[in-house]
């Protein structure tokens, strides 16, 4: 009887540990948040942010001068019932950060068709710039038809970090890849 009770307690403890671990790792998992979709000046504009994308190891690597790139994939599809969804637009946006240890600033560059760069004195601002998609024009509203259903899917992933001594494999935990975030909408304007 006692043996059975002990076994049951151990089993429950294991289950609880498993659930907590899953919850913890889910909380720690990088994901797309604060998504906002709007139209502005005849364009479909997207705002989004990647959360939990910086780990301590990654921060250490960036401060050690390792250039780090996040790639955002933004797709706009028209939803079709009896056919494959139609791709309207596909964007690949790269955010790269590189720390200049002499000047003690973070050089941030964003490539979305054309390159834009900025310097940040503090790491938090630089991290925010890396994680944010700030008013990205996905498509012109002219490409959309009224009363049709569309959806935007967004995903962020970290590019392979190239490290010295071909150690990329051993610290591959720096990699992250969010799930696709999908937002449906009906164009009415």
């Amino acid at each position: 009887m006692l043996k059975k009770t002990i076994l049951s307690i151990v089993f429950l403890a294991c289950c609880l540990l498993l659930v907590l671990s899953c919850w913890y790792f889910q909380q720690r998992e990088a994901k797309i948040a604060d998504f906002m979709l709007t139209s502005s000046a005849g364009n479909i504009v997207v705002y989004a942010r990647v959360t939990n994308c910086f780990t301590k190891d990654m921060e250490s690597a960036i401060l050690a001068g390792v250039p780090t790139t996040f790639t955002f994939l933004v797709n706009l599809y028209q939803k079709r019932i009896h056919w494959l969804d139609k791709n309207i637009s596909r964007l690949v946006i790269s955010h790269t950060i590189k720390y200049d240890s002499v000047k003690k600033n973070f050089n941030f560059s964003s490539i979305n068709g054309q390159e834009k760069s900025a310097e940040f004195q503090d790491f938090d601002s630089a991290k925010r710039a890396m994680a944010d998609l700030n008013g990205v024009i996905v498509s012109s509203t002219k490409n959309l038809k009224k009363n049709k259903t569309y959806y935007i899917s967004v995903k962020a992933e970290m590019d392979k970090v190239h490290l010295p001594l071909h150690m990329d494999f051993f610290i591959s935990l720096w990699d992250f890849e969010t799930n696709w975030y999908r937002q449906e909408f009906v164009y009415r304007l």
Partner: protein
Amino acid sequence: MMKSHHYIDIGEAKKRRRERIIIVVIFFMIVLAILLESYFFRGEDLLPTSTNVFIFGLINVNIILIILLIFLIVRNVVKLIYERRRGILGSKLRTKLVAAFVILSLIPAALLFLLATNFLSHSIDNWFNLKIGSALNKTLEIAQVYYQQTAEHAKHYAGQISSDITKNRLYELEKKGYLRTLIEQRQESYGLGILAVYFDSRRETLVVSDRDSPGINPVPLTPKILEDVFVGKETSTIQSSDDGDLISGLTPIYSYISPKEVIGVVVVSYRIPKELVDNIAVISKTSERYRQLHLLKNPVKFSYIIILFIVTLLIIFSATWFGVFLAKSITVPIQDLAEATRKIAQGDLDHRINIKADDEIGVLVGSFNQMTEDLKKSNKGLKQANMDIEERRKYMETVLRNVSAGIISVDKGGVITTVNRAAEKMLGIKTEKVLHRHYKDALSPEHMAIVNELLKEMGRKGDGFVEKQIELVLKDRRIMVLTTVSVIKDDDKNELGMVAVFEDLTQLQKVERAAAWREVARRIAHEIKNPLTPVQLSAQRLQKKYGEKMGDDAPVFYECTKTIIDQVEVLRKLVNEFSHYARMPVTNLSPNDLNETIRDSVALFQDAHKDVHFDLNEGTDIPELNLDPEQIKRVMINLLDNAVFAVDKKDGRIEIRTSYDKTIRKAMLEVADNGPGIPAGYKMKMFEPYFSTKRTGTGLGLAIVNSIISDHDGHVSVRDNTPSGTIIAIELPVTHV
């Protein structure tokens, strides 16, 4: 010089070859996978995600292959342990060899692994020692301080100039000339680089170029910079170009009337020469690289330890596998040899070891096969010799069996080894009861006394040979045998035992006696018969002539003469009998049915002696015999007459049996009675003339029977009936079958 072992075992060759091929293929696949991984990891180009998946796949395949390799080796080791527990031949030697290889490889490999791990760990720690890191950090700090101080200087002088402008109200348009003079003086006195003054109201910039590098433009005032400055912040920027870095300090210019109102900006810039920038960049890069490497210290250590560990494992597994392989190459032929020995011991001389080898084991296997071949040949010869001996033995047995003389042999220890059929019959013994027994145990005391006598005589003579006529009294008869006892010796004169040969002289003696008696009878008949007639005639004449003249003595006279005449008659009859015995009629043999022949005689006696029970058992398959029916009837009359006389009148029983023995091809006729029987001592004399147990018998009945049966080439014998009585047995040969 070591020769390469190359064994081809038909049984397990395929299996072992397959295992070897799998191991070699796995080994090469691992090497190939490692090379591919190395190639992809060294690639400078950014790999897409799919390639990463491919690499991970390769790594997984690699792990699976290593696990498979471990499985194969572990399987072999487990198999070895299992075989050892089962006590399979060769497993102990194989275990020892494998253990030796494993220990020989494990100890140095483990030591090497530990040393290499320590050495590697120590070396990596040394690479990242504090001195190098600290030196690099300090150097970088110097560069950082240099940039920082330059920016501070620029801001400081920009602040002083801004203060002078505000104090002297040089921002007013009419004092433009004074302003220019002031900034030129300050540039010269402070040793500044580029000096620029910007007023928001004028939308123009007063610039004094660097005297050393007049071509360099001042830093452009970006909206962000202007925003910072016009909120009253002193700021600095670093602008990189092909000529070097430009460090600028920006300070707001305040209005004299309204001291919190920013009306312009003083920009003081210092140019950092390209050479210095490049040097600082080198320091920076080195420091960055060091920090990155420091970040990778533990992963690098871990990866090298993993590689060392895998190499160590591969060495141990290779050694284990090689140990298993080498052990198999030695123990498999030994196992085969043992198996072959077992089979050959079981008699399978056709078994051959099917191993081809070019080393000493090959020579051993060849010699073994040759030995087996020779063994087979000699075995074949031995079998042939045995067969010859067996045939000879059978032939000898047949000869012995068919020899009329009885033969009994004993070995050196006195154990009876041979008894032939004639001996069995002659002495009335059963072979299975006496064979392999000591003769002292098999013989009765009387016979033992005879044997001892013979042996004594042999000992006296000393030539190992004795011959003697002996009268043996057996259970139901008495026989006369000529016994010859000889010592058997081999070619080396070693004594092997003795052989006794018995020759039955009974029949011969009977014949000789019969012949003698006939001669006697013939002479007696001849000598007595002649005077009888005159004696009888004389007596009759006396009776006739003087009978009536005798007067009173006449009766006596008559009686006397009558007695003479009667006795003469008796004598005549007697002489006639003798004469008849002496001159037996010539036997006319012709094919006749024995049963039919004897049936009339039996019937005659049945009628004559109603009080005696006659039982005639006729054999069914008796062929026709060459016999004289009249003579045989006479035999039957004699035998039945004797039997009737012998039996009791109340419950007399006489059985007449006929039969046929196919093996000896003889017809048997037996007359058995249940009378009192005949003592053993009389049996020898029964068939001699003038031997009778009857008061009125002539003693010639059985002598005549014997004579007639002898004329038929037959044999007559007497034995006791059970429970009482006598059996007279007659054997008659069958010639027509």
